[in-house]
C-alpha cells in the first residue's frame, strides 16, 4: 500500500498537506496523531470513501480513484461509529454483509457462524445489537469487517470510547489478525495502543507525516533510557553532579538524570560511584522514553493543528 503526496482540503482548510506513506503487506501500521491531524481523512481516501484533491494512492496494488471497485473488493473499513444495524441481531448483521460479499445464502450463514464463534458472540447471536454494550457492538462491527476475508483492514480509532476491558479484548482480536496475513491500518490517539499493536507507526500532525518508523526506532529518536536519582539534600546533589560530571543535567527539586543503557551493571556502577563520594541517594527511578515522549517531542513545536481540527469535525 502506498500513498504519495496526498492533498485534501475542505473549503479553505487544508486537511492533508502532502502525505506520503508506504505500508508493507501483513503488517500492522498505526497512524498516530491528535484530533484533526488528518488520520480519518487519510483512512477515508485509502478506503475509497473520499477522493483526494491531489496525489495518488494504491491499495492492494490498485489505484484508489481509478480502480476503486477493485480496491473495495480487497478491503474492509471499521469507522469511528460502529457501522451496524442496531435493530438487527448480531447474526443478521453478519449474514447481511455475507450476502453483499456474494457468499450466497448458505455461505453467508456459514461465515456468520464462524465469526460468531471466533468473536465469542454465541450467547448473544440472536439479540438485537441495540441492547449491546459499546465493546460488544465494536466486536460485531469488527466481525462484519472480516466477513469478506479482506486483505487490508482499516480501523479508525477502534477503541475510542471503550472501557479498559473491552479495549483489551479488541486488542487481542486485532493481534490475532496479523497471524492471518491481513494488513491492518489503524488510527489512534492512544500511544499505548500503537505501542501494543503496531509494527510501524507514523506520527501525523497538520496533515502530514512528521515521523515514521518502528516503535523502538521512534523512541531512540527521542532519547535513551535515563536513570533518575532523587537525592537527600542539595549538598548531595552538588557532590553527585561533581562525581558523575553531569552538571548540565541537573534538574530541580533534588533530581538528577543520568543517561543509561538500563542494565543492572550500569546502575550498580552508578550507585557504587555515588557511595564512594558519600552521596546519599534517597530513591532511584528508571525512565524509559514512551511513545508519549516521542509524540510530545515531535509535535510540541508545531502549530496550526487547531485549525485543521475544526475541518475534520465538519467533514
Amino acid at each position: 500500500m502506498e500513498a504519495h503526496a496526498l492533498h485534501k482540503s475542505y473549503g479553505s482548510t487544508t486537511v492533508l498537506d502532502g502525505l506520503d506513506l508506504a505500508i508493507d503487506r501483513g503488517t500492522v501500521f498505526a497512524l498516530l496523531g491528535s484530533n484533526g491531524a488528518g488520520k480519518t481523512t487519510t483512512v477515508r481516501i485509502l478506503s475509497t470513501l473520499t477522493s483526494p484533491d491531489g496525489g495518488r494512492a494504491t491499495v492492494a496494488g490498485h489505484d484508489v480513484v481509478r480502480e476503486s471497485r477493485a480496491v473495495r473488493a480487497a478491503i474492509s473499513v471499521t469507522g469511528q461509529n460502529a457501522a451496524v444495524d442496531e435493530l438487527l441481531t448480531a447474526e443478521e448483521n453478519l449474514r447481511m454483509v455475507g450476502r453483499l460479499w456474494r457468499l450466497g445464502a448458505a455461505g453467508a450463514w456459514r461465515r456468520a457462524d464462524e465469526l460468531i464463534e471466533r468473536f465469542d458472540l454465541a450467547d448473544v447471536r440472536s439479540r438485537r445489537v441495540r441492547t449491546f454494550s459499546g465493546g460488544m457492538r465494536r466486536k460485531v462491527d469488527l466481525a462484519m469487517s472480516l466477513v469478506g476475508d479482506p486483505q487490508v483492514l482499516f480501523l479508525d480509532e477502534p477503541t475510542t470510547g471503550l472501557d479498559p476491558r473491552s479495549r483489551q479484548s479488541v486488542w487481542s482480536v486485532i493481534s490475532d489478525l496479523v497471524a492471518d496475513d491481513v494488513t491492518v491500518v489503524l488510527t489512534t490517539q492512544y500511544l499505548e495502543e500503537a505501542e501494543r499493536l503496531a509494527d510501524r507507526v507514523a506520527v501525523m500532525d497538520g496533515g502530514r507525516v512528521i515521523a515514521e518508523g518502528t516503535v523502538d526506532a521512534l523512541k531512540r529518536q527521542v532519547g535513551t533510557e535515563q536513570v533518575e536519582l532523587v537525592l537527600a539534600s542539595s549538598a548531595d546533589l552538588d557532590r553527585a553532579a561533581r562525581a558523575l560530571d553531569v552538571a548540565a543535567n541537573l534538574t530541580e527539586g533534588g533530581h538528577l538524570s543520568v543517561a543509561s543503557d538500563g542494565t543492572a551493571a550500569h546502575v550498580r556502577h552508578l550507585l557504587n560511584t555515588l557511595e564512594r563520594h558519600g552521596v546519599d541517594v534517597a530513591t532511584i527511578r528508571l525512565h524509559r522514553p514512551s511513545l508519549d515522549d516521542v509524540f510530545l517531542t515531535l509535535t510540541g513545536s508545531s502549530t496550526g493543528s487547531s485549525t485543521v481540527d475544526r475541518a475534520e469535525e465538519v467533514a
Partner: protein
Amino acid sequence: MRDALEPGWVVSDSLTMIGRSLRLSIRNLDALITAVVLPVMLMLLFVYVFGGAIDTGTEYVNYVVPGIVLLCTGFGSATTAVSVAADVEEGIVDRFRSMAISRSAVLTGHVVASVVRNAFSTLVVVLVAVAVGFRPDAGLLPWLGAVGVLLLWVLAITWVSVCFGLLAGSAEAANGMTFTVLFLPYVSSAFVPVETMPSWMRPVAEHQPITPVIETVRGFLLGTPTGTTAWLALAWTVGLLVIAFVAATVLFGRRTAG
C-alpha cells in the same frame, strides 16, 4: 472512474438491501404503529366528530377516506426520511460504500420498504373504513386506477422523503422536514371541499399536488367525474417523482462523498 458492475449483482445487492429495510421496518414498531394508528384515529375523529358538520354532498366517510389515505403517506414518509438520515449519520452507509457493491442498492431498499409499509397502512385504513361504513361504488378497473394513482403518489413522496433524509444532518432534523408533507393534506380537499375555504386560500389548496391526487382517487372510487384532474394528478406525481429521484441521486452522491 468506476468499473461497471454486472446487472445480476445489482439485483442481488438490491434484494439484500430490500430485505434489510423491510426487516428494519418491522423491528421499528413505534414508527409502524404511528403510521397506521394515527391515520385511523384521525379518520374516526373526522367521521364521528367533525363529519356531521361538514356537508360534502355524499356520506362523509366516503368523502374522507381518500384524504386519510394520503395523510397516511405523510406519516409513512417521516419513517423513510428518518431511516435514510440515520443510515448516513451512523456510518453504515460508509460500510456499504467501502464494499464492491451496487451504490444505489441502499436507497432502493429504503424506497421499496417504504412502498410496502405504505401499502400495508393503506390497507389497514381502508379495512377500518369499510368497517365504519365506507362503501365505494367502483368496479375492478376504477379500483385498479385508484391503486395505481396511489402507488405512483407513494413512490413520488417516498423519493421526496429520501431527499429530506439526505438533506437533513440528523434523524431528528429529517423528521422535522416531513412536517411539510404532513401538513399539505389539511390545506387540500382531503377533509373539506375546497369551495368551503376562504377565497384567498382556495388557490393554494387547488394548486398543490394533494388535491388533484385525492380528487382522482375519489373519482375512481365514488364514480364522480374526474375530467382533467386525473391528468393533473398524473403530471404532479410523475413530475415530483422525476425531480425527487434526480435530486436524491445527486444528494446521495454528494452527501456520501468528500
